[in-house]
């Protein structure tokens, strides 16, 4: 991934910075320029909002055939998580026996290495999720 492309999303990748619609109060991640519920009414009313990072697993899968950047890490788990704020996020589940992962499991975000552009390129950090304490 190009460095500028990764860099502009650091507030999201490191700190789960989303948006909240000042019109209806709904929280979105990644940030949205316009609220899907309020649409026109929300233009100019979307403010930065940092998600807590806690949520519940809605569904999950275990990836056995990884894409290029993730070779050597398989098998690993990916889940769709309903965050406490109401929006969904996708992310890897780490530090957990694959067999332990279940729908309804409570998770919290953590800071991990996501990808790297080979051994001489930049490293991309971001969020993954682990079992909540």
């Amino acid at each position, binding site marked *: *991934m190009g460095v500028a492309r990764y860099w502009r*999303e650091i507030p999201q990748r490191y700190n789960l910075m989303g948006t909240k619609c000042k019109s209806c109060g709904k929280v979105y991640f*990644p940030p949205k320029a316009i609220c899907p519920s309020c649409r026109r009414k929300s233009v100019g009313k979307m403010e930065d909002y940092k998600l807590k990072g806690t949520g519940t697993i*809605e*569904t*999950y*899968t*275990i*990836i*056995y*055939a*990884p*894409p*290029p*950047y*993730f*070779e050597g*890490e398989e098998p*690993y788990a*990916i*889940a*769709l998580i309903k965050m406490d704020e109401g*929006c*969904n*996020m*996708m*992310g*890897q589940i780490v530090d957990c026996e694959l067999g332990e992962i279940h*729908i309804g499991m409570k998770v919290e975000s953590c800071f991990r290495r*996501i*990808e790297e552009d080979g051994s001489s390129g930049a490293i*991309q950090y*971001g969020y*993954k999720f682990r079992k909540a304490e």
Partner: protein
Amino acid sequence: MREVAVIGSGVTKFGELWDKSLAGLVAEAGISAIMDAGIDGTDIDAMYIGGMSAGRFVGQEHLGSLAAEVSGLSELHISSTRVEAACASGGLALHSGYLAVASGAYDMVVVGGAEKMTDVVGKEATNILASAADREWEAFLGVTFPGLYALMARYHMHKYGTTSEQLAKVAVKNHYNGSFNPKAQYNRKITVEDVLNSTMVADPLHLLDCSPITDGAAAVVITSLDKAKEYAEEPIKILASAQASDSISLAGRSRLDALPATTAAASKAYRQAGLEPSGIDFAEVHDCFTIAEIMAIEDLGFVNKGEGGKAMDEGLTELDGKLPINTSGGLKSKGHPVGATGIAQIHELILQLKGKADKRQIEKAEVGMAHNIGGSGGTAVIHIMEAI
């Protein structure tokens, strides 16, 4: 808006076609459709070509112009447009062509779809396919395209008790149907055990739950219904052509056990055709993964939500069942050259509607539906057709 009909169609063989190039496939399908329609190049007003990612598979963009050149039509300077909606590129190309004819803007339109996926290695093809998903918030994090459908499969299994065996039955049925299709990538029959024993790709989807990487192209010729009667003995009327969009990311969907885009497009299509789901005799649905077919027959209104698995146990959608689904072998056995799939589905509907499906001909084939999906459900395109 005037009525539109198909007067000719053609597909190439689907498979790992090492000796065929993208341009070659486009020409083969296009010429075959034009010959089938019995029209001359000078009759054509416009072309629409669906292709998902020729740029990354073979480094080629600008497919509208490429298609014009390889079809021998460049000197005629017809309107030629590339359409992209990931795996729904073909269906969307037809919808675009349909609107052009229905509106009266163009009279005779060739619509095709093509994808050349085997010039890159498997892993690279998989990576390219992931651009149908949300690159920043899904693919970047390590989820693969099978992974997205696996997430939906696990949710469906959790909510409705759908089983891996029921998923496998989709693959078994489609391979059985495909064994009668000489153009299909795979002609071999498989069993439920074969599916369950195949390598796990993204839990709970096994290798045989997933459609393959394929090269291929398909094309149809459409014109107004009135004009069609001049050209074809049996024009095939397009009763409905509908498209719906939804969030590209799975996280942005309103539900995980269905593709709301399918239901929305279906609703538009049924209304346009003046039909209920019970009015459909057979359908080609988008079985990129076995779970997709199970969700599709629910979302299209053929069975209740959650009962797609049960329908497999009851054989509802078998070749000799009450509602045959994917008589061509589906994406699973016929193959899934991404941009071509939507048009290849139409070709199968035409064969069945005309009684020309040979060993896989179904008894009652008066009204057929084609259901084509882009990505994990970001786009849905539905066509309903009948023989007149």
